[in-house]
């Protein structure tokens, strides 16, 4: 993720200028990847055709432990098991678009057998 060289805040999504102080010296650094569920919803009737076979799935805002938020899915658990503030850790997977995307799973991993990954 980008960090501003002037005000030292993390910047997401990637930009040419820091949105907090307009500095242009943004550098990349590695984050823990861990975080918590900030809010979530369960999509039951996807509007994007390629997601229809995955429903129901969890669409969430994840707040990383470094404080930055991003959109993602929570996988490897039942949608009903997801709760706000639940700790999560990163997993990488292929999206229906065939791009590699950053998803999250419960941390620690659920004791149950992992379910089919969404996303």
């Amino acid at each position: 993720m980008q960090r501003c060289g002037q005000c030292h805040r993390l910047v997401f999504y990637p930009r040419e200028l820091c949105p907090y102080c307009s500095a242009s010296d943004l550098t990349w650094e590695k984050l823990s990847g861990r975080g918590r569920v900030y809010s979530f919803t369960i999509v039951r009737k996807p509007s994007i055709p390629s997601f229809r076979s995955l429903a129901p799935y969890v669409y969430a805002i994840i707040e990383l432990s470094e404080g930055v938020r991003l959109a993602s899915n929570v996988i490897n658990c039942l949608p009903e098991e997801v709760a706000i503030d639940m700790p999560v850790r990163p997993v990488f997977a292929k999206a229906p678009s065939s791009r590699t995307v950053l998803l999250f799973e419960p941390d620690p991993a659920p004791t149950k057998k992992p379910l089919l990954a969404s996303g």
Partner: protein
Amino acid sequence: VSLRGSAAIVGVGEIPPIRSGEGLTALGLAAQATRLALDDAGLRIQEVDGLLVSASTTEPVFVWGGLVAEYLGVAPHYVDVVDLGGASAAGMIWRAAAAIRAGMCHTVLCITADVWDREKFYADFLPMMSLEAEFELPYGPMGVNTGYALIARRHMHLYGTTPEQLAKVAVDQRTNACLHPEAMFNQLPISIEDVLRSPMVVDPLHLLEIVRPCSGAGVVIVTSAARAADRPKPPVYLLGAGEYSDHTSIVNSPEITVSPIRESARLAFSMSGLRPSDMDLVSLYDCYTITVIMSLEDAGFCAKGEGGPFVSSTDLTFAGSLPCNTHGGQLSWGQPGLAGGMSHITEAVRQLRWDCGARQVREARHALVNGNGGTMSDECTLVLGRDR
């Protein structure tokens, strides 16, 4: 220099919600609604010298403002496209007043018109939001629905807001819609149980808490207070306006349960010199039930977090202590795409003219209107009044 009382709405015209988009164009609907607004204001098109128009989800045309002006036969001193999503209509009113106050023009057509085409909306329109396409669409959001579901879920988590409290908004607005002959859903009242029994679409929002997209158009005419005085219908004055935005995608909102309405409403009330308790009715953009609860909190009708208990214990119907969305709101009246926000203005104008028949709020003098664009992203709040 304040806009307070400097301009007034003197004409309204509306093509009520049409379920299908079949065979319709935004341009055609805009023209039909303009004809009605001109008749209502007793004006000829030659007396119009300004034009504002909202974007359309199905006709993203280059120089759209100029095209609409040419189509209608307007030779404008001021023309622009106001692109604030659902806040576009409210945003037009103060822009028109500001241009009039600055002497750039004297009479402005404010036009919203849109045609619902589900396929075009999801395939062509949503992906135009380029950053969301890159950072959110890969995770399968359900259009705009997921953003509001995320707000509702966190609001419930932080404040204990219940599904029953959310449902109450839809119930009271349906009661209002049943007295509006042009509302899409005006046949049967609904109960809280009906809302909670309707299919869960995006947790925690049920089908009856989500707007039904449709086609339609709404046009109002804004002119100077001086010119407004001799129009056939009572003028409705702009007393206050405020606009604010602090994010586009809900993912980038500083705190998703606090909307920019807190700032836009503060500015609007401050300009008007009035307070929430002075409002005889509120006309709040209601794409979802949670939007109304958040709007009431952030505009200062109750404390943050108390919106749930507030709507439960307050009669929001036209006959109640705080009439809210007396046309049924978009939840029951219908959401004609990017034209939906204008319905909150046309209804407030009719209420302040005392022209609403069976659903008239008695002796209504002041109305608060809120336009909400994106995912509680672009907010424009207006205070309208029967007196200057």
